[in-house]
């Protein structure tokens, strides 16, 4: 295809993870497609970051439960990524003449799509994971990468010392060059944790992906195999310290907490930022209606909701119904959920289309209870009581 000659940098977004620690939210959809923050999906943040960073070519690697994700990504037009040359492309697993493979690890997923990268002949490839909530300007990181004449640049955040052993930890010299990388070390030597955001110079990426593919026993993973191999060979690896908002939403607790960040007079996660717009795919909706008995305090509320009850310190997604006399507090109430008259829900995640019938009681005070979760489509019956900390996956 003869068009614009090439792209400087393209992004490859790994969206194939099952996200099993987020179950039951991920029972039927891939983690990047999980709704977040009332109007968004987790993947919107990475995609919007790309577009806001002037990266207009994104390959999205899918594998697990992609139907909803594919529909959601649609033609990329929601992120202005519907281009004739470039734009958003979904890259599912496939069969070739010699047979087919599921993606074995993060590195293998990229390896199987080297053909896609070559089409745009970019100098740099940005690897993203699509399951974090953050607002990051990749173009600044790319500038650093170029300035350092690096082969690979890894974005890091500073984590509390006591949490460092949960992450891939970087040790760097004074120039920022990585001298050591340890995956989940028992005794971390620094607090610089990998965000799973990498920029590679394309030729080096291809070289090490091909080598890794031919390495017996490799798990074909960037963190476990490719990065250590490059370090061993003395490639120019740099860290890039990111200081903005960043949340891992890998567990139900962290997912709940990140949702709460959109609340408050000055929210930690500011969604109205005109300088860093988070775009999303619109599904059909109407304005929300708040009834005569409604009472809403420190909450966000999505479209098409009909609320005549009480919402305190909660994130209400779209199409939610809260009837008169019902109350939610410290909750994440996801799309289409219904809270009937007199029901009381506290410190809980109510997944899509769940129904809490009249006068039911779900969860307990945040201060002294564990998080309660009602899975998608579940009905909690009239007058039923769900104890704090329960994960309800069957009607009760």
């Amino acid at each position, binding site marked *: 295809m003869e068009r614009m000659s090439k792209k400087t940098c393209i992004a490859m977004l790994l969206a194939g993870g099952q996200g099993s620690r987020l179950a039951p939210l991920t029972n039927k959809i891939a983690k990047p497609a999980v709704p977040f*923050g*009332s*109007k968004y999906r987790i993947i919107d943040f990475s995609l919007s970051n790309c577009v806001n960073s002037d990266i207009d070519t994104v390959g999205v690697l899918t594998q697990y439960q992609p139907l909803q994700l594919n529909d959601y990504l649609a033609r990329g*037009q929601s992120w202005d990524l519907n281009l004739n040359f470039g734009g958003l492309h979904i890259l599912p697993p496939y069969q070739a003449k010699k047979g087919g493979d599921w993606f074995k690890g993060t590195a293998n997923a990229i390896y199987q799509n080297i053909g896609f990268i070559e089409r745009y002949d970019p100098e740099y490839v940005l690897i993203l994971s699509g399951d974090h909530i953050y607002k990051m300007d990749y173009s600044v990181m790319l500038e650093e990468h170029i300035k350092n004449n690096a082969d690979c640049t890894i974005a890091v955040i500073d984590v509390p010392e006591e949490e460092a052993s949960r992450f891939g930890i970087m040790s760097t010299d004074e120039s920022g060059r990585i001298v050591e990388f340890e995956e989940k070390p028992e005794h971390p030597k620094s607090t610089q944790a990998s965000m799973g955001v990498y920029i590679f110079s394309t030729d080096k990426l291809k070289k090490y992906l091909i080598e890794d593919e031919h390495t017996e026993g490799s798990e074909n993973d960037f963190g476990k195999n490719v990065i250590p191999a490059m370090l061993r060979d003395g490639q120019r690896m740099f860290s890039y310290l990111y200081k903005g908002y960043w949340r891992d939403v890998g567990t139900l607790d962290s997912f709940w907490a990140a949702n709460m960040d*959109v*609340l408050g*007079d000055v*929210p930690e996660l500011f*969604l*109205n930022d005109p300088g860093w*717009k*988070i*775009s*999303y795919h*619109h599904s*059909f909706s*109407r*304005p*929300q*209606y*708040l*009834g*005569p*008995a*409604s*009472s*809403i*305090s*420190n*909450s*966000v*509320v*999505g*479209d098409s909701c009909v609320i005549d009850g009480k*919402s305190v310190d909660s994130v209400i997604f779209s199409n939610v119904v809260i009837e008169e006399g019902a109350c939610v507090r410290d909750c994440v109430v996801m799309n289409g959920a219904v809270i009937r008259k007199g029901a009381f829900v506290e410190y809980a995640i109510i997944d899509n289309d769940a129904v809490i019938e009249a006068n039911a009681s779900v969860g307990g005070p945040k201060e002294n209870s564990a998080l309660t979760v009602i899975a998608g489509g579940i009905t909690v019956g009239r007058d039923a009581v769900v104890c704090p900390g329960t994960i309800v996956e069957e009607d009760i």
Partner: protein
Amino acid sequence: MDAVGIIFANTYDADLNELTQKRTLAAVPFAGRYRLIDFTLSNMVNSGIRNIGLITKGNYQSLLGHVRTGAEWDLDRKNSGLTILPPFSTMAGESIYDNRLEALASNFSFLRRAREKYVLMCDSSYVGNVDLKEYFDFHVQSEAVLTGLYSDQVMNNQKGVKGTTAMVDSDGRITEMEITKESPEGSKILINTWLIDRERLMEIIEQAIRDNKRSLRRDVIIPAVEKQKIMAFRTDSRILALDNLQSYLASNLDLLDKDVRADILGTGKGRPILTKTRDSAPTRYGHESKTSNSLIADGCVIEGDVKNSVIFRGVRIKKGAVVENSVIMQDSTVGEYVNLNYAILDKNVIIQDGRMLSGYITHPFFCQRNSVI
């Protein structure tokens, strides 16, 4: 549905000067996030019309910015879809048309190129969610020359504003029709929607141009009532009139009624009203906000009190403010401890802290776009 749609984006009747100074009638905002054109376009698309011409006159930048490619209505087709018909197209040459007949004549080539058997012509001065398929079937079965549309539930129409009324017999045939400011006893208010055979319409236009006629209703339809079969179809749907500011406010506030809202916005009817999307954040409520009986769009920050009101996208209502019985349009800001009652704020208005502005239901207080008070 084998019909091409024609939408007149301009008003020829209504008296909404305040809202149409910088925009064509079809682009007037309504119900929190819509523009009037959304209702007509959605009705057409929901009933299977796939080829629509939008006749514009002046001030149509904001209308173009709203409908853009028609993608929201799945009208961004390679062929047909949505065609913007600006002035100066073809036949009638250099004049800017000031009636429907001239407007049609100017866009004769659009009619000629269409392949559909029928033409559905609509105004933009009424809001409703109407099943046009029923209407279409009625027209085809009755073998009428022309079929108009009326509802027994036209709400908020105002005396003293020009409209089309007709006497309709029990078969649905129009026996008398007039353009009047007062509806005669027993008459129906026609909402300026007409179905006609396309070839027939083209003949009528050509003949009218030759005869120097100027008005479709006055010079063509009304004289035909006696001689030809002109029918009227009754829809079960409510119709909200937007005759003047008072009627505009009342029609917005009527949507706070559950039944009216379900009817007009089509809840559960399978006839959604589609509109342009905007990447708004969800609406955020402060610690001390109070809300009651209100329709609120996305992207707002509500820290004060909102009661019996319609709030558009991106509106900010600051602490201590009280907004009642009002319509606040897109991106306006209501400052701290402001009191608003029976007010209509157009887009991007800023009301500074502590102001108190109050109209009355028959005389809403109106603030022009971009003004600061």
